[in-house]
């Protein structure tokens, strides 16, 4: 009924601000695709010409391909486990009447504020102490650790928005606890679970310092890119790869936003 009201009249300063804001966020990012099509090994203006060469190099670069596969593996496993841990924890925090819910949220949040490099050191010490060889597995464990709080942050609002009487109605209609979980709880929080997995995957895929400290012989993609930065000639394929990643991220974010339309809450909110 009360769409644009007095106080809500759009104004010119706002549009100017929006333009500045978008420029600030996007101009740096747009440099990657720009130079990824530039026909020169030097990353500098003026642009020379249009080429697909760097994309071709990217596809024929075997170590880069291996690193990509590693990152996808780590991301997939970490996102599934972190979300699984998060589902049960979010369910516990929001549904059961644990004395002192607030301290629990506090405890879950805390690892978020520990600098990645310190977590990396701590995990390194732990792995050394228990004699675990560094490998993609140790990287995955590190990533699960940093993803869980984000999974919780995504899932808790879902479980909070979830109406307890739905589960009671299910029990009332004859379903036991397990049946209720599968037929009511899970379908209703599914969009949140998928959003959590997407978020965790992204975090794992992007993470550098913990992967750097915990990896063995197999590199994840950010570490591979890092190792290539020393050689200017190898930079253009990295730009091509970066552009491809941004394009794929775009699709993933779009999909996760689309998912949020469906389900309990319809408000536009960030995926975090």
């Amino acid at each position, binding site marked *: 009924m009360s769409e644009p009201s007095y106080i809500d009249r759009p104004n010119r300063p706002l549009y100017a601000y929006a333009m500045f804001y978008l420029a600030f966020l996007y101009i740096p990012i747009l440099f990657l695709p720009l130079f990824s099509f530039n026909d020169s090994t030097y990353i500098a203006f003026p642009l020379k010409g249009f080429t697909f060469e760097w994309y071709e190099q990217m596809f024929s670069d075997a170590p880069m391909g291996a690193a990509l596969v590693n990152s996808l593996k780590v991301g997939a496993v970490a996102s599934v486990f972190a979300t699984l841990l998060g589902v049960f924890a979010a369910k516990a925090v929001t549904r059961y009447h644990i004395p002192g819910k607030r301290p629990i949220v506090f405890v879950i949040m805390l690892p978020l504020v520990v600098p990645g490099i310190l977590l990396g050191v701590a995990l390194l010490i732990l792995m050394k102490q228990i004699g675990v060889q560094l490998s993609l597995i140790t990287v995955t464990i590190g990533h699960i650790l940093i993803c869980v709080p984000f999974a919780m942050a995504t899932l808790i609002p879902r479980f909070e928005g979830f*109406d307890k*009487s*739905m589960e*009671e*109605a*299910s*029990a*009332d*209609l*004859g*379903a*036991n606890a397990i*049946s209720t979980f599968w*037929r*009511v709880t899970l*379908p*209703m929080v599914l969009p949140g679970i998928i959003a959590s997995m997407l978020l965790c995957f992204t975090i794992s895929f992007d993470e550098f310092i913990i992967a750097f400290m915990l990896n063995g012989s197999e590199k994840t993609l950010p570490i591979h890119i890092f190792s290539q930065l020393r050689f200017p000639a190898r930079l253009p394929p990295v730009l091509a790869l970066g552009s491809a990643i941004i394009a794929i991220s775009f699709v993933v974010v779009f999909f996760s936003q689309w998912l949020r339309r469906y*389900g*309990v809450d319809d408000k536009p909110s960030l995926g975090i």
Partner: protein
Amino acid sequence: MSGNDAYIQISDISKHFGAVKAVDSVNFSIASGEFFSLLGSSGCGKTTLLRLLAGFEAPTKGEVYIDGAPMSQVAPHKRPTNMVFQNYAIFPHLNVEANLAYGLRYDKIEKSEMNKRVEEALEMVQLAGYGKRRSNELSGGQRQRVALARALIKRPKVLLLDEPLGALDKKLREEMQLELRALQEAVGITFIFVTHDQEEALTLSDRIAVMARGQTLQIASPKELYNNPVSVEVAEFIGQMNFVNASVVDVKSGKAVLETAGLGKITASTSKSFVQKGNDIVVAIRPEQLSLRDKPARGQHGVKGTMKTSAYLGDRSHVYVSVEGREQALAVSAQEGTGSVGGLDRGSDVYVTWSDEALILLPH
């Protein structure tokens, strides 16, 4: 109202949440086929009592028997009760048909029989053709019907209803009240209905339990509650009421002489035990039992007052009359068209009259 008079027995049941006694030693029975209401304001324990019957809460003390069987060790999904939730709790990820069929799976019913029963249930609540819709494509009244059908399709012995009409607007609520009552008569099972709306409870129920502070104040038929409330608290809750403080001057052969604050010295016939010489009591009079006249009426009790304000309600008006000796004005319900208030303006003198039988004596 056929069958067993104590079909459901609530035996000394209590439910405490920490220090809060949500339900406090409640005892009563409900007959099979009865439309029974739990009435009270929010926090009175009515919903907790309903949830104890459904099995969503375990009693701190006491036992519920349904058809003779104790229930406290029976899980909600095994009880012969079904519930209509206040917010309807319709599964948003399932369409209407799937919502209705949800509970039938556990009754080991064949697929074809299941479809038949879903169709029947949809027809019963006048939603034939709506089977493929989702919750968010239904209006409030339609959701209420789906919730009702989903519970009744299980053929429960007892249907529990937690303020099912609270979310509907007034016109729709009145319509649904009639439908609900007709439905209950058609299916013939026991309905236990929670509401905070006294008018709704009066309209629908065979009997009503008025609750406050986790206890039942009075359990009676609507007429009995309206005409013979046992306490000021019940009388305050049901309908509109004028209260007059009084002290008993004398009691003789069923007639009490009372000295009142504002109505002067009056007599009332009574057999109630608390009406004893020297006691303070409360006299209650319904607004529709008071009449307005422009001069004192012979042979009737009456008091002179000043007309303060009136509230027009279409078919009747409530007129508020200030009376000396009372802070609160007397409310008088006047029929429109009877002319009794036609000539009266604000501030003019009026006489408020009543008959002896209209007085209800209550303990202080």
